[in-house]
């Protein structure tokens, strides 16, 4: 069998590893429009911050392609997929046929149409290594940086370049930072942390126009800047498959086997949309763990296996200046607030299930809550009071512990 993978990030790599779990010898072609060895995109802010470097941020070891017998084709942008002939064409004119194909084309930063944007000298986005390197190149100790968007990317970018510039201002339309994952009660804690570290936040505002190195805000404020980074969001790269005839919504639509609507074509990662089981809605869950698992699922199925991934939920682990937070699921239903001693813990539950949580500060063992959401464990089957206080296996049944810790097999 011959497999083609488009995309060299988590989903693509997951796909390689998925295929190799079943078939050590199937042919694999991996094409990337970037020229780099696979690297971790979320690490670009850490790169600027100096917490990692180009070597260490490689997502897999140098011998990854060789070890996995992957024909790696860097710098090859695929421009066409023909599902009827099972062939692809690249920008350079290379044509390849496939038996199965994974489309893991990721997402691209969205840049709102703003008057004067084209005239901005140092305008950047922040989602690829090239973006980061370019930004780094442009930064000086005197730079005043304006970041549009106080989401995960914008804030991580702010943290990453904090020591590389003089001034950072972050603007967002919302009334708080991280509005997609924090509520009004918890967002100010992060905002405070950012401000303590010299990052200015401008809520409920947006740029009306750029003129002469200044951003003229809708509110009337004028913010002079040297460098602009636009981080208002990303859009799934669906064009390639959409053109080929696949069903797409916000992202490429896939099932729990990572199959698209086209035969022998799979998709995974940020370019897709899938079911968030915590909310029951189709969503673009542009998260690395999600991408990997979708890619791996695709890989196993491409190799002839039968694997499904049906428990996607939104989840985020992120930290700023040593203050960590972990959130997962959706914030629906009743709230149990177990915050104490400056640590935030809000649990959202409904219909005997944990739906979501927000933890800031002490995030120890947060994965146990994640598991409650992901595995949809009925809260009545565990000691919810205890687990709400202290995440631990103590709150589960002895049988559960015997199975997970003791390796005991019941029912055999």
């Amino acid at each position: 069998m011959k497999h083609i993978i488009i995309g060299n990030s988590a989903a693509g790599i997951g796909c390689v590893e998925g295929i190799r779990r079943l078939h050590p010898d199937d042919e694999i072609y991996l094409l990337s429009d970037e020229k780099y060895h696979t690297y971790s995109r979320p690490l670009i802010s850490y790169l600027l911050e100096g917490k990692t470097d180009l070597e260490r941020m490689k997502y897999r070891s140098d011998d990854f392609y060789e070890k996995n017998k992957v024909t790696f084709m860097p710098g090859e942008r695929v421009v066409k997929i023909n599902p009827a002939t099972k062939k692809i064409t690249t920008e350079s004119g290379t044509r390849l046929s496939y038996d199965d194909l994974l489309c893991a084309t990721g997402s691209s930063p969205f840049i709102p149409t703003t008057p004067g944007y084209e005239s901005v000298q140092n305008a950047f986005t922040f989602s690829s290594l090239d973006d980061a390197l370019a930004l780094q190149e442009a930064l000086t100790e005197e730079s005043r940086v304006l970041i549009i968007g106080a989401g995960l990317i914008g804030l991580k970018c702010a943290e990453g370049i904090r020591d590389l510039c003089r001034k950072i201002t972050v603007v967002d339309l919302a009334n708080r930072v991280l509005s997609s994952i924090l509520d009004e009660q918890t967002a100010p804690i992060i905002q405070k942390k950012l401000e303590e570290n010299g990052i200015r936040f401008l809520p409920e505002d947006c740029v009306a126009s750029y003129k002469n190195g200044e951003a003229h805000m809708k509110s009337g404020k004028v913010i002079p800047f040297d460098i602009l980074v636009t981080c208002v969001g990303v859009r799934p790269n669906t064009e390639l498959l959409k053109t080929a005839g696949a069903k797409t919504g916000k992202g490429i639509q896939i099932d729990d086997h990572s199959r698209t609507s086209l035969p022998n074509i799979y998709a995974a990662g940020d370019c897709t949309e899938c079911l968030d089981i915590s909310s029951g809605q189709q969503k673009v869950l542009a998260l690395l763990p999600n991408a990997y698992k979708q890619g791996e699922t695709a890989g196993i199925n491409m190799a002839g296996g039968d694997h499904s991934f049906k428990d996607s939920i939104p989840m985020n682990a992120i930290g700023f200046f040593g203050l960590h937070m972990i959130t997962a699921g959706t914030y629906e239903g009743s709230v149990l607030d177990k915050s104490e001693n400056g640590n935030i813990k809000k649990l959202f539950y409904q219909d005997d299930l944990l739906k979501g949580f927000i933890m800031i500060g002490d995030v120890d063992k947060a994965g146990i809550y994640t598991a409650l959401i992901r595995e949809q464990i009925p809260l009545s089957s565990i000691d919810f009071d205890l687990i709400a206080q202290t995440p631990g296996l103590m709150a589960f049944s002895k049988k559960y512990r015997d199975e997970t810790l003791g390796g005991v097999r019941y029912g055999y």
Partner: protein
Amino acid sequence: MKRVYVNEKWCLACHLCEYYCAFANSGEKSMVKALKNLKINPRIHIEEKNGISFAVSCRHCEEPLCVKGCISGALSQKDGVILIDQNKCVGCYTCVLSCPYGAISPTETGVMQKCELCTTNASGTPACVKGCPNGAIVFEERGTV
């Protein structure tokens, strides 16, 4: 593969596993030198309540959510053992978010640590197993988890 299994029936909550773990991963030859006047930060933790107690450490899952979710590629699975390359880890806590057992925790430097079945230290057999006085923690081959 051989895994660490915990039988809570025999756990005495003596916490020796935690100390032997911390010692084994300290790189020191003397436990006194390694642990004296320190608050230990072991990779195995006792949970105890109302006379029930048990040790929790990495289960070395066959489908490890931590490895699959690791954004930096620092976590990997080698011969069934889930290892962490602390040099690659950036301390993002995605593994903490992912692990259903709470078996990954930060070190003092902010990168993560977890049980590696003592394959990366000088202990040989996992130190918690060797140090358990009552056979509550064992290292055995029992098929898949």
